[in-house]
């Protein structure tokens, strides 16, 4: 069996340029690996025949010299609309839904002539932190198949971590890229809110959702982000930031940078072995003349509460369109409009999704909207200002991504609050719309990966990759 997919993107690109391999070799190898590791359950839908015929077609074309992503296989989280490829959101509700349009990021990926291998498993409608709410069963952690991948982008994390594909897209509403990246030992970036168009991303919580790259290395992460960003007239929240090369600072000196670690991120909620790993990172940084301060930050402990109010509220509204009328599942028991609604939604949605819709509806109903929702948005604003203040003095905020390493697939099954607490360290970043990056920083006693969380100021992804790449080399 070939091992081209173990090579770096640059090495693969060289081989393609030298015509030693073709995109078809890469695609075939990807499907072979997927088949071998079928029990990882990382894909919901494979795009095999299309991908193979596209790879053949690409093989006839000239390799684009400057385009490192040319012909590279990529996996797409199954909540991103792909024309002609079933997009289920891991839900029975969309089990047979085949989109008629491409998300803006998919258009961009196609422009770069990357090859879409398939759609990855996830928590149903991205609601969860373990990918166990998937209608298609939970994906398994390639590091230890008895463990969760984390979520919601668990399938994307698993297929990169397991070496099935080098690149994947995930989405992150409250840690859904960074947390599974951390659990599976890969690199995951949630870009600044608005960096990447959300058009075609099936919304969970509109003001928190962001698409981002999940990769094996920091460099490849930056490379993939290069092709995803840009203002999109179809997404009013997308930013008018100029095109930049996110790899440009990689390899540059980090001396003189300033890093803040909020005390809350190293408090008793985090397991000691993870804190220990973080301290080792701090040592490395200090040895390299990076200033590290432990600081107090207000409101971080409120993030989960804000998340419950804001994300569930928005979700209850965003998921109202799944009503059995114009797409998705309609219950056969639909003799009246009300019956159609209740049965389609009760049968089409899984338990966690229903619970969150109930919670969101409840927190927006009657007086609750004024009492809780408005207040949550005010605290959210204060939380953002708190970050702004920190970034006046510091280049980064650092912390662990998760409070523990990935736990067993059968653990904490009925604890929905646990699901939120898994994301307690990453949610503030979504609240403030900041970029957050997860990179591996070693393994725990159980030999499971531990992730370092690098939070940057808005639009400073390039600088984050600079630090991340430095640490990536040092920690190895």
């Amino acid at each position, binding site marked *: 069996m070939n091992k081209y997919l173990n090579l770096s993107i640059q090495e693969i690109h060289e081989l393609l340029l030298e015509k030693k391999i073709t995109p078809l070799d890469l695609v075939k190898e990807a499907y072979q690996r997927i088949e071998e590791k079928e029990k990882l359950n990382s894909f919901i839908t494979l795009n095999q025949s299309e991908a193979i015929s596209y790879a053949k077609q690409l093989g006839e074309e000239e390799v684009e010299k400057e385009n490192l992503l040319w012909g590279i296989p990529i996996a797409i989280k199954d909540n991103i609309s792909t024309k002609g490829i079933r997009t289920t959101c891991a839900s029975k509700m969309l089990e047979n839904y085949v989109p008629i349009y491409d998300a803006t990021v998919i258009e961009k990926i196609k422009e770069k002539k990357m090859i879409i291998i398939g759609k990855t498993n996830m928590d149903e409608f991205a609601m969860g932190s373990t990918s166990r709410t998937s209608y298609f069963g939970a994906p398994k952690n390639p590091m230890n198949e008895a463990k969760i991948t984390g979520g919601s982008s668990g399938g994307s994390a698993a297929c990169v971590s397991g070496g099935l594909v080098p690149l994947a897209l995930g989405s992150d509403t409250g840690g859904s890229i960074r947390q599974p990246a951390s659990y599976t030992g890969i690199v995951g970036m949630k870009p600044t809110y608005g960096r990447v168009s959300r058009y075609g991303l099936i919304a969970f919580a509109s003001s928190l959702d962001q698409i981002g790259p999940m990769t094996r290395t920091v460099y490849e992460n930056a490379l993939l982000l290069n092709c995803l960003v840009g203002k999109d007239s179809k997404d009013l929240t997308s930013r008018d930031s100029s095109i930049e090369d996110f790899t440009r600072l990689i390899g540059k000196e980090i001396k003189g940078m300033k890093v803040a670690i909020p005390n809350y991120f190293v408090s008793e909620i985090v397991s000691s072995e993870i804190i220990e790993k973080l301290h080792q990172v701090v040592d490395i940084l200090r040895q390299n003349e990076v200033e590290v301060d432990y600081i107090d930050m207000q409101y971080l402990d409120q993030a989960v509460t804000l998340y419950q109010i804001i994300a569930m509220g928005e979700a209850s509204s965003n998921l*109202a369109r799944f009503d059995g009328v114009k797409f998705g599942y309609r219950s056969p028991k639909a003799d009246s409009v009300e019956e159609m609604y209740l049965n389609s939604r009760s049968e089409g949605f899984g338990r966690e999704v229903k619970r969150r819709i109930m919670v969101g509806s409840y927190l927006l109903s009657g007086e609750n909207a004024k009492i809780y929702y408005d207040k949550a948005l005010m605290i959210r604003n204060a939380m953002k200002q708190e970050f702004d203040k920190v970034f006046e003095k510091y280049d980064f905020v650092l912390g662990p991504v998760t409070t523990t390493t990935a736990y067993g697939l059968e653990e904490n099954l009925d604890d929905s609050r646990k699901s939120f607490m898994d994301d307690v360290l990453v949610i503030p970043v979504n609240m403030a719309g900041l970029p957050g990056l997860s990179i591996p920083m070693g393994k725990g006693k159980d030999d499971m990966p531990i992730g370092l969380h690098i939070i940057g100021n808005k639009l400073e992804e390039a600088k984050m990759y600079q630090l991340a790449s430095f640490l990536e080399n040092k920690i190895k």
Partner: protein
Amino acid sequence: MSNYQTTVGIEVHCELKTKTKMFSNSINNYGGVANVNISEIDFALPGTLPCINEEGLRLGIKAALALNCTINKKVVFDRKNYFYPDLPKGYQITQARNPIGVNGYVEIEVDGKKKPIRIHDIHLEEDTCKSTHAEKKSYLDFNRSGVPLLEIVTEPDMKSEKEAMAYLEKLRELLLYTNVSDCKMEEGSMRCDVNVSVSQTENLGTRTETKNIGSISSVGRAILAESARQMQEIEQGNIIQEETRRFDEKQNRTILMRVKETGNDYRYFPEPDIPPYDLTEEMMEDVKRKMEVLPEERRKIYRKAGISPVNIEKIIANKPISDYLLGMEDINLVIASNLLLGEISAYLNKTGKMLGDTCLDQEKFKILVTKLDQKEINNQIFKEILVELMETDHDIEKIIDSKKVDTLSSEELIKLIETIVLANPASIEDFQQGKDRAVKFLMGQIMKETKGKANPQEANQILLAVLKKQ
């Protein structure tokens, strides 16, 4: 049943005259083949997001200005959440917290008395699908889904059906004249919900809402019927409930649709997919600059020009004519309006044409009115040349000149011939001597003088008569 005061508040929805929809870019047109003017967004396909139609926003601002509202410079939207098959997203994008316009008024006149009706707010939102119903199934047409809507909400300021009708007429006129909406109630581009309460005290009674009334006159009848019903209920010792009703035209009464749940639970919250839009001074100025002359302003101009009140209202009721008269303050507007309302309207009715389809452009029309005003031509001539003016692009001066000669009266011709004869004594002599050439010569002179336009037969007869008298 005495001493009851009826109080009315009105909510109007009107569709904006944009080319495309409010939050998507499909064509704003429905009523034809179902589901052709649709986009991904109109169907709320998973992953789609709204965009904002600039023209929709501009029309909202224009309406707010015309209704004397304070304009909220920060444009934001909210979601109104409810389930209904005609609402694709399961929420309607609307403006609940910061409507585009607030605290406005419309001045009405009833029985010679003027009165302002306060506008609580006007806000932008989107229309739902059109549904048709069979016995067991309903059918959805998404062409209407996302059509820009403006909702205009009054304070409960109207105290009679007359005031309510006057308000609606006035509102309709304003929206038509600002080209905000075509306000066709029969086609549903203007829809009307009426809140009615009755009370014997200073305090307002419990109100009911009568929805979707089909015409302004029906609104009047619905208010009369509903207030009568409420008075009767109270007289019978019953309590009025907050409820939604509809007006049955045939039975001339309102019918209960549903009792309102205690405060509709629409779970409003700010629309996270649309960041605030800050209205620029530039845009405000631009909207103001391009604002049409409002009907009240036009009435003033007409009154000043001396047009009769009856004709003023006829002109206002006919917007194409009123628009045609714009910028014509320097000509005699009484004559102008008489022509337009009289012969010209008759011609248009007969031919089924619109004023704009004819060859009578405003420049030509101004010359025509001036000539009539200065008595260069009379009404008789105007009538004779009307068709030519309407249907050809011949020069108006030429059309008039030709008619002037053509209509040279017999008296004028006699006078002209007498002058010519007397100026040629030699020819009289020749005639008397029986020489033919005299008549031939004189005819030539006549034709020359009249530029050949005189009727030769008539001229010949007159000439012979004149010569014989010599």
